[in-house]
């Protein structure tokens, strides 16, 4: 479960301050599929970064599965992220010089999983997402839809409970977007908690709940 209480995120620069999150109170239960909607610059990605332990709050509390994340050190934060959270990005964020297989096995390598076990798990997710034949290809050799499915496979392979997706259909056409959302629904059936940032209402409609964010405030 994710709980944010009076969460603030303030960015300071040379002579300016931006409040990206302003007293946000939010609860997301395990197994929920939540869409976060808002205009550009409203604080959606900041919210996702904080939930994903990629950034820290400047005020308030963040509790993830009964652990108060707010005061955790860097090492513990990294460990928590590794154990619980997987990411899917708009621009896929695949490593260009690695094959599709190597990109997907990355989280397993981070966890120190042996090569035999890695092979089994990667093969499993690739077949589930119908990208098994792309094993030896490189990201630049495949389509956007296939790249995004690779990113999803990478997010799934470690078996983490929380999947955070930042505009996953942002770079895809309508057909591929629809395909992708079917995959998300499928993942959701496995009991994963999915938090998806989007500015597309049609895409957001696939979620169980929609959270609106405006000027750093959640309504």
């Amino acid at each position: 479960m994710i709980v944010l209480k009076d969460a603030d995120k303030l960015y300071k620069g040379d002579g300016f301050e931006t409040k990206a999150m302003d007293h946000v109170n939010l609860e997301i239960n395990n197994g929920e599929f939540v869409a976060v909607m808002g205009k550009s610059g409203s604080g959606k990605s900041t919210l996702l970064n904080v939930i994903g332990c990629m950034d820290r709050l400047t005020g308030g509390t963040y509790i993830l599965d009964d652990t108060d994340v707010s005061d955790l050190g860097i090492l513990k934060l990294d460990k928590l992220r590794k154990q619980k959270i997987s990411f899917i990005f708009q621009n896929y964020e695949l490593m260009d010089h690695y094959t599709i297989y190597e990109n997907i096995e990355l989280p397993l390598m981070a966890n120190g999983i042996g090569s035999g076990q890695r092979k089994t798990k990667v093969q499993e997710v690739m077949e589930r997402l119908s990208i098994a034949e792309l094993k030896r290809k490189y990201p630049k050799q495949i389509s956007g839809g296939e790249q995004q499915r690779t990113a999803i496979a990478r997010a799934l392979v470690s078996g983490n409970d929380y999947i955070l997706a930042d505009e996953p259909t942002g770079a895809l056409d309508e057909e591929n977007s629809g395909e992708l959302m079917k995959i998300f629904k499928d993942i959701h059936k496995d009991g994963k908690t999915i938090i998806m940032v989007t500015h597309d209402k049609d895409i957001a409609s696939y979620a169980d709940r929609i959270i609106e964010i405006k000027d750093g405030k959640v309504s």
Partner: protein
Amino acid sequence: MNTFLFGIFQIFKKPWIFLITVAMMSVGLIVSFYSFIVYDSYHFPTRQAKKVLNYDLDDIYKINFGMHMLGLHSDDFDKLDKLYGQIEDIQGIDYWGSYFVGGNGRADILYVYPSLTGLCDIRTNDNLALAFDYNNMQSGYGIAYVGADLSKVYPVGSKYLDEETGCEYIISGVLKDGSKWLPDDLYGSSAMNMNQALLLDLNYAIAQPENKVFLANASNYLFIGAESDSVKDSLNALLNKLELDVDGIVRLGSLYSSYEKDAMDQAGENYLLPLILLLSALIVSVITARMSVMASKKDYGIMLSNGFHKANIIGIILTENIIKCCCAFLICVLYWAMQRLNMDEFTKTLYKDMFGFRFALFFVILFLMCEFPVRYILKSKPTDLLSRREL
């Protein structure tokens, strides 16, 4: 996870960055080392001499003849002969005489007084002191020795006609492998490798009046043992008695120190170019290391967002940079190993002496290459490294 193996994996994934970095570092290091050695080799003869001389530098005296001697007056050479003849009577002088170096196109030639051969550790291949016994010698021939590598060209018992002096010699023995003689001049020439040389009795040559002229450019040494001050006084008295035009008798150690002082005074300009080249090599290493990190910035962000710790990323960067440094230094070492075949003895000595410097330089370069990337990764958030924008 095994960051070392992953670091190697990263290198294979981006081989061009690795190769360019290693190539640029290697070239910079080779050129800067070469410059140091070339400039240094002319400036520190003491180091060279200490390895070759049989005696302490402060126990060896050099006679500096005055300008008059260089005017090739036969009187002066007769006086020098008398000096050497009477030196035996001075207690405490073990070796004395003159030498100079020539060549015949095939071999270097050391023309030396038998009474001076003990200055350096020159022995026969049976490890015996050189013998210049003319009692059982055929008359009309002088005694010569040949270096270990030329013993088949000038076999023992064969005759050798020296074109420089017009004298004929009999090769009486082979010199011990690895024998060396003092450099001909004191400005950083390498020690003479006697393996590739003939050693001819100079005393025999200058018995011919027309050959006394060779003494004008010869180097003149005395080895004086204990109680050197009293010996020097006796020697000065003898020199005055013979009315030899002598500027002074100097300790070899003092003479070398004065040369080094002159060299050090000029060190600023002489070392400027090697320092600039070395600095360039350092800057290139640092810049390419930074470029490598910035080129892999996105990869590091992806790794951080997929379970890698910052410590893993730093381990990967360190592994890459250690391997780059090792490869660059290995190329440098291999290059110099090949060059050693053509290196003179002094340069070889200098190169060996620079081991400590090279060892320290490795760690300096490694530190500089890693300092920025480590700081950058430590202060960056995963989102800073990825190509994401706020939507």
